């Protein structure tokens, strides 16, 4: 048996980087922390690649099944005899795949940032947070038990908070960071309660026990019900709520677009490629249980499908390029969720699962690429808005080409990566539920449209008069772009169905052209429409917007979900709950205590009149008292 215990170092290196850069980074020149960070991450990356190679091609497969190996574990905290938190490394196909995704994108973001943030204040702070995030994300993906996942889940949440709020002098960044944290925290409450429920009924946190077919969750599911649904269903739905919060699924998506206030490499790493897919990963991790509770799986599928459509529609109307990408991310994650929702376990039933993981993998590359390109563009133009851009293909040739590759990949044009994964999702949806298929099909067209709207709007379109002619980004930024572009182009050729499947066995697949061709067609239609509307400045977009006035305005305002949240938080929670509580505390609780003291005071004020200082009054009282006593005694004795 190959010893995988070294994999712990994949996590620990970023952690030590965090400590090192965080404490001693400011003793050196800023660039030193960048170089140290990159070097550390490179080591992690190489270790991950090595692990992947060893696992997939050497020792992982036993009798045609990829084994789940605990590479390393240590007891961290014991609650009861059966419930305890192990910190460890679980090696199985999806965790190894995620190791690759996280370390690759993180390495790219590290390298890219040396150029992107050059000369900015807080350079070393940025690198320490980035390392913290990488550590947390790696800890999340290799979690051996659900509580370890929750721990790192919170840690990625906080590193996301710190990185979104990186420009802490900008009020909007501070607000966005706060929003991201609180919304996901709210979702995490669901996750926590889900964990409590699940762990109470199964008496284990361990993933391997939970998901094993003979385990307590699957073989002997708890019989208890609550409001007509089994507790297991409740638990899984609540856990999905946590995943939905992190993965920005409707209606917990509101933090993601705002999170674009963070530096662009952060958006690429956290809010496109890694952290936001944690929800998908969570569902995939617990997938064997989800399969046994169809209602929860239906929820996953429909939330995913609705989010993908909802976000795609909004993405068509936005002008801030990072926001377009953010909504696109939400839409693509909806795709993955939907794919999981339509999947079964094992064999061809499990196509959706494999497709979802495949899409997660390819999406990480092309979406990170899109964001990093957007960063390069913003770096050159100093604006986030599409209407400040146009005709940039001459100024930014490398960015232009890599952006195009990513757009083709996300639109699903063969042979780019997105085609393969998206196609599998559509096939899976088609075989499961026609309505979901229809939604996803429309979304595919919308995706192609808004991505190319962006592409044509930025790189073609009207010529702008730039004050300073935009110039291509430095090499430190373009190398990651090119590297990721290679991923976006070729990742689709990886035989994913041989590596990552729901039952960890090989799944033989053939391209179903009956679905592939229509999906290419609709992508081309989307691109065509974008070409007509945005290649040259025309009046068509305005006319269409005018024709669909109400709907367009609603979509432009993101269907007023933000306003709804603001209403709930500010009006209801702040004004109608917190404020009355504060008032109640001051006036009723405190008032009653003060009231007691007031009554005491008043009583003493009334009584103190006896103490008049008049000698003769005292004497009179004394004498009358003595006489009274004397009379009483006389009466008693006779």
């Amino acid at each position, binding site marked *: 048996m190959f010893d995988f215990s070294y994999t712990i170092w994949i996590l620990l290196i970023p952690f030590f980087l965090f400590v090192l850069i965080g404490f001693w980074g400011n003793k050196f020149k800023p660039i030193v922390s960048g170089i140290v960070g990159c070097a550390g991450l490179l080591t992690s990356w190489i270790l991950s690649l090595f692990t992947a190679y060893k696992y997939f091609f050497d020792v992982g497969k036993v009798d045609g099944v990829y084994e789940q190996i605990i590479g390393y574990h240590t*007891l*961290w*905290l*014991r*609650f*009861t005899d059966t*419930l305890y938190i192990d910190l460890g490394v679980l090696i199985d196909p999806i965790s190894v795949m995620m190791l690759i995704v996280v370390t690759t994108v993180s390495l790219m973001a590290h390298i890219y940032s040396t150029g992107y943030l050059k000369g900015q204040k807080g350079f070393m702070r940025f690198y320490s947070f980035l390392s913290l995030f990488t550590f947390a994300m790696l800890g999340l993906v290799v979690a051996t038990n659900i*509580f370890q996942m*929750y*721990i*790192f889940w*919170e*840690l990625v949440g*906080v590193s996301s*908070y710190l990185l979104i*709020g990186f420009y*802490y*002098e*900008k*009020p909007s960044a*501070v*607000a966005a*960071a*706060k929003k991201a*944290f*609180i919304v996901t*925290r*709210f979702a*995490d*409450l669901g996750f*926590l*309660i889900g964990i*409590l*429920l699940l*762990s*109470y009924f199964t008496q284990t946190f361990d993933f391997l026990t939970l998901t094993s077919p003979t385990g307590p969750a699957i073989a002997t599911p708890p019989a208890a019900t609550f409001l007509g649904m089994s507790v297991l269903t409740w638990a899984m739905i609540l856990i999905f709520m946590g995943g939905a919060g992190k993965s920005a699924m409707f209606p917990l998506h509101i933090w993601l677009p705002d999170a674009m206030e963070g530096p662009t490499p952060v958006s690429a790493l956290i809010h496109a490629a890694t952290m936001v897919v944690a929800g998908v990963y969570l569902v995939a991790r617990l997938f064997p249980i989800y399969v046994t509770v169809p209602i929860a799986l239906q929820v996953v599928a429909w939330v995913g499908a609705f989010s993908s459509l909802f976000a795609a529609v909004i993405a068509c109307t936005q002008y801030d390029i990072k926001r377009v990408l953010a909504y696109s991310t939400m839409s693509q994650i909806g795709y993955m969720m939907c794919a999981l929702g339509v999947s079964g376990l094992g064999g061809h039933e499990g196509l959706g699962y494999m497709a979802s993981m495949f899409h997660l993998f390819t999406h990480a590359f092309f979406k990170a690429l899109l964001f990093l390109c957007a960063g390069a563009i913003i770096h050159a133009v100093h604006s986030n808005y599409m209407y400040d851009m146009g005709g940039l293909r001459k100024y930014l040739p490398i960015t232009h080409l890599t952006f195009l590759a990513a757009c083709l990949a996300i639109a699903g044009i063969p042979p780019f990566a997105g085609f393969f994964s998206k196609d599998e999702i559509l096939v899976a949806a088609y075989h499961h539920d026609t309505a979901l298929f229809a939604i996803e099909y429309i979304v595919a067209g919308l995706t192609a449209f808004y991505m190319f709207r962006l592409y044509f709007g930025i790189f073609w379109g009207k010529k702008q008069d730039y004050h300073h002619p935009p110039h291509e980004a430095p090499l430190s930024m373009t190398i990651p772009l090119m590297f990721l572009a290679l991923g976006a182009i070729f990742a689709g050729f990886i035989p994913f169905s041989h590596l990552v499947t729901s039952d960890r066995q090989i799944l033989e697949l053939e391209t179903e052209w009956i679905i592939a061709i229509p999906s290419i067609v609709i992508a081309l239609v989307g691109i065509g429409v974008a070409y007509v509307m945005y290649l040259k400045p025309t009046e068509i977009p305005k006319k269409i917007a005018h024709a669909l006035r109400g709907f367009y305005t609603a979509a432009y305002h993101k269907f007023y979900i933000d306003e709804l949240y603001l209403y709930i938080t500010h009006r209801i*929670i*702040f004004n109608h*709950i*917190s*404020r009355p*509580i*504060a008032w109640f*505390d001051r006036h009723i*609780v*405190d008032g*009653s*205590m003060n009231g007691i*003291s007031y009554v005491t005071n008043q009583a003493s004020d009334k009584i103190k009149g006896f103490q008049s200082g008049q000698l003769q009054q005292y004497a009179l009282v004394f004498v009358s008292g003595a006489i009274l006593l004397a009379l009483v005694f006389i009466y008693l004795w006779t």
Partner: protein
Amino acid sequence: MNILLLLIIIPILTITGILFAREDKHVRVISAIGMTFQLIVSAIIILWFLAERNAGNTAEILFASNYVWYETLNIHFYIGVDGVSVAMIGLTSIVIFAGIFASWDVDDLPREFFTSLILLSSGVFGFFISLDLFTMFLFYEIAVIPMYLLIGIWGSGPRQYSAMKLTLMLMGGSALILVGLLGLYFNSNPTGGPLTFNLIEIARVQIPLNTQLFFFPFLFIGFGVLGALFPFHTWSPDGHASAPTAVSMLHAGVLMKLGGYGCYRVAVFLLPQAAHELAWIFIILATIGVIYGALGAIWQKDLKYINAYSSVSHCALVLFAILMFNETAMNGAIMQMISHGIMTALFFALIGMIYGRTHTRYINEMSGLMKVMPFLAVAYVIAGLASLGLPGFSGFVAEMTIFVGSFQYSDTFHRVATIIAASSIVATAVYILRVVGMMLFEKIRNPEYELITDAKWYERLSTGTLIFGITAIGIAPLWLSTMITGGLGPIMQKLFLAMN
């Protein structure tokens, strides 16, 4: 000689040293030296304790000594520790150590200030090592009384009002406790032999249920007042707001724990059946307290009020967990006491330091402090993150232990209470991030703040110690958890008998 006696002797020696100090400047140095020794002794006690346990010493009480104090009433000075009290001793010594350095720049009557502070801490130490109810109560009073002077003389704002309110409410609480203790005393020997205050002996006695039901509310509410049990928490916001930095630290960090510890060690341990019967009332109150404190904090503008309400919420969680009568939750309660103790001490220390620089405690008047005082700001963020239960800090460990433990109850009432209490983590995130966002981030609006300097060495030492405490527990909680669980055996046995 018993090493635990050192915990009392060192403060007394320190106070003597302070009284004989020639100059005011020497006072703080003497206090610092004394409390450093105290910290070292506590560390030795903890290590020794762990070593004894590892060596297989399973005695219920370690380092026990029994001295007769007043023979007629059978009052003893009986000291000894188990896993729980050792942990509390560690907490106290850390907080008092940090407190001395946090009040390094007190120049108004320093002699009297440090004397009262250390006297207070010696009361706390005495309370935690006492196993005789009478001396326990005595030390409790020693800990509470100097508070009045400390707030009334060195406080700010409406300090006389706050000091009076705090002292009177706590005295009210101790009146209730006294009644309860006497109740225990007079029922301590049903066969008619000599009565005793000895906690361990009383624990062996089967007190009739009616008596238990009568005295349990006295003890639980009495200690609950100090533990900020809703609705008897109202001394806490005003008291903390007026108290000087080190006093807030000690008070929220350690004194409030006396309440929780008393509820655990006296009320629940000695009256388990009544606790079982009446738990539902106090669980409801504690659940309300958890949510109420958190939501109440959202609306506050004064930093100290925010933290006072936050303390109400966190301390209510302690009482909540104690009443779950489940080993895991009980363990969580003790860890929450320690975690909250260090964390809130850190908060109050930082608030004091920030107030010393900005001269305001209103968050809407401050902004952009991250830029001018990065050390303090980062420390504040860390305290905040610890407070909202982030993994890697002690708060997470404690809260999760509580939630997992209390969820092991199979009835709906306890479950619902747990879920409601757990939802406080969201509200906590809201008020913490609100403060952090408003106070530390964004641009500096007040130009005077540009001149603010960052932390001095003693402030760094003070906050650094506390941050080390919360992260050490947060990263490696197992030893603490195991140590505490070791001390929970007797109470769990009693509760198990009571519940069946």
